[in-house]
């Protein structure tokens, strides 16, 4: 076992050795090392987060035909540090009538709920926090904590806009959690496990994005809704309720929300990479070839993973800066009347075909899976088209639930 093959265990063993040589009880040493590991992971995530601020600002600038930060440091790379300094030195306001404790816990909880996700995020085959056998549910559970954080913030601010924003956010998140949970079962069925790492490994042959493109699409939509990003950003809709649940937050407390959101988006990009693009692995078996074995080095894998996650993050940003906000009733109708049934269809399709086609040669299996998804997608679009035609005929403004989906696609 060398550092290059298994860095985490290498360091862990080394530190355990050091601590026990200091006559520290083994149990205490274990706990201490857990804490150290958690801290290291948080620091890594947060550092990445700082980078994300820069990425976000740069990308949005390009989308809006601007240059973005370019004054501080090369390409404006130091800009995030300046941002942090600005936030920290701003006045920290707690509004009158606010529920102080809850008000202060909320931003921490919001950021925590995101960082919790990193515990199961495998950066490489040997670099990961924990390989839970219920990893997928864990993601949902962490999302639940995020919901709680937002409702706490909204409630404790003692502000009508904040409360409205919180209500919207919660209805949004709880609704879109359902298609997300359903669609997460598709990788589960395909990989036969709920472990995140297991799903990654199961895609060494073929990405699930190819086996089930519709699942990818639904996951992307519900992830964006879960993040509360545009076009599902009505929880903080600046033009109506100013800033929604974090209207009263200033300084670094706002910063936590902001950082949490960015990191959350990136993390979901990472999960998209894991569930559908093979995560740190997934080179269609090429890594087994002699001259490509360097792809299996953990640090290379981590770089690959971050690249894939960044792609997912970029897609989410792309959507955010291209699509306008939609009305809340449209959003809920789209979820309940379209996304949930569609995801159920996709799930049933996957479950049945996976059993039926598993005996076939693998190229037929892949073709069958992909073809069935395309077929379902085509039928769905035809149904939506017919529905839209009917709406237009009825002389009303077409309330097509397909709009956001088509734009996303």
């Amino acid at each position, binding site marked *: 076992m060398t550092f290059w093959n298994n860095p985490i265990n290498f360091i862990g063993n080394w530190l355990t050795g050091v601590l026990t040589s200091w006559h520290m009880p083994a149990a*205490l040493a274990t706990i201490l090392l857990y804490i150290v590991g958690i801290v290291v992971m948080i620091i890594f995530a947060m550092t990445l987060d700082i980078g994300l601020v820069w990425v976000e600002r740069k990308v949005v600038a390009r989308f809006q035909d601007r240059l973005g930060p370019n004054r501080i440091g090369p390409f404006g790379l130091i800009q995030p540090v300046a941002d942090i300094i600005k936030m920290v030195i701003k006045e920290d306001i707690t509004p009158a009538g606010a529920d102080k404790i809850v008000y202060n816990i909320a931003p921490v909880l919001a950021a925590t709920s995101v960082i919790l996700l990193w515990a199961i995020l495998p950066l490489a085959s040997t670099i990961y926090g924990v390989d839970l056998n219920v990893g997928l549910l864990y993601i949902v559970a962490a999302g*639940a904590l995020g919901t709680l954080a937002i409702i706490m913030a909204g409630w404790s601010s003692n502000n009508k806009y904040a409360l409205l924003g919180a209500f919207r956010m919660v209805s949004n998140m709880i609704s879109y959690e359902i298609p997300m949970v359903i669609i997460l079962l598709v990788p589960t069925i395909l990989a036969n496990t709920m472990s995140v790492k297991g799903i990654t490994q199961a895609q060494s042959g073929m990405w699930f994005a190819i086996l089930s493109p519709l699942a990818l699409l639904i996951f992307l939509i519900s992830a964006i809704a879960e993040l509360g990003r545009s076009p599902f950003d009505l929880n903080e809709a600046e033009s109506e309720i100013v800033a929604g649940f974090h209207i009263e937050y200033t300084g670094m407390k706002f910063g936590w929300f902001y950082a949490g959101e960015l990191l959350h988006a990136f993390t979901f990009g990472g999960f998209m990479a894991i569930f559908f693009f093979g995560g740190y692995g997934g080179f269609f078996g090429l890594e087994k070839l002699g001259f490509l074995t360097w792809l299996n080095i953990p640090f290379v894998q981590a770089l690959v993973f971050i690249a894939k996650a960044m792609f997912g993050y970029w897609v989410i940003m792309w959507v955010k800066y291209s699509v306008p906000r939609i009305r809340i009733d449209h959003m809920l109708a789209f979820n309940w009347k379209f996304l949930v049934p569609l995801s159920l269809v996709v799930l049933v399709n996957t479950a049945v075909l996976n059993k039926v086609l598993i005996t076939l040669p693998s190229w037929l299996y892949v073709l069958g899976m992909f073809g069935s998804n395309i077929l379902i997608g085509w039928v769905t679009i035809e149904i939506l088209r017919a529905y839209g035609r009917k709406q237009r005929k009825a002389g009303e403004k077409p309330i097509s639930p397909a709009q956001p989906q088509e734009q996303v696609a």
Partner: protein
Amino acid sequence: MTAEQIIFLLTGVLVLGSAFMVVTVRNLLHAALWLVASLFGVAVLYAILQANFLAVVQVVIYIGAIAILFIFAVMLTRRQLLESGRQTRSSWWIPALLGLLILIGLVSLILSVPGLDRTASAMPVGLDTVQALGTALVSPDAYVLPFEVASVLMLAALVGAVYVASVDKK
């Protein structure tokens, strides 16, 4: 005292302390949040018991759904939230006494049964609890019937809740 025992005790204090706060604090929203803390502690207990699935589901259902529902309900009825008045009945000592009596009875019962102070044996090697639970829930010679009944109950509750809470259009 092993690390595990320490963690258990800390979690136990969290669970019981939060539970106590749930039943005593005046602000109902705080009570709901304390409930979240208590139930989170229970999830940790499940994790210690190596019931990973239940631990995660506990968080998803109780914190992600039930607690949120409570907070919603509290917010929707807050005009009547008697934050200033008494939240407990005047004769609160009767339930307290009753609870204490029952606690004493239960504890003495638990302590009097032999063999309950056992410690757990190691988990059987190769047992995937999630898979085993899933199989048990849908296999006909195990719990598929209760499972299906529970799902029908959920459906009935869904429809019933929507119907009861919906506003009359009249």
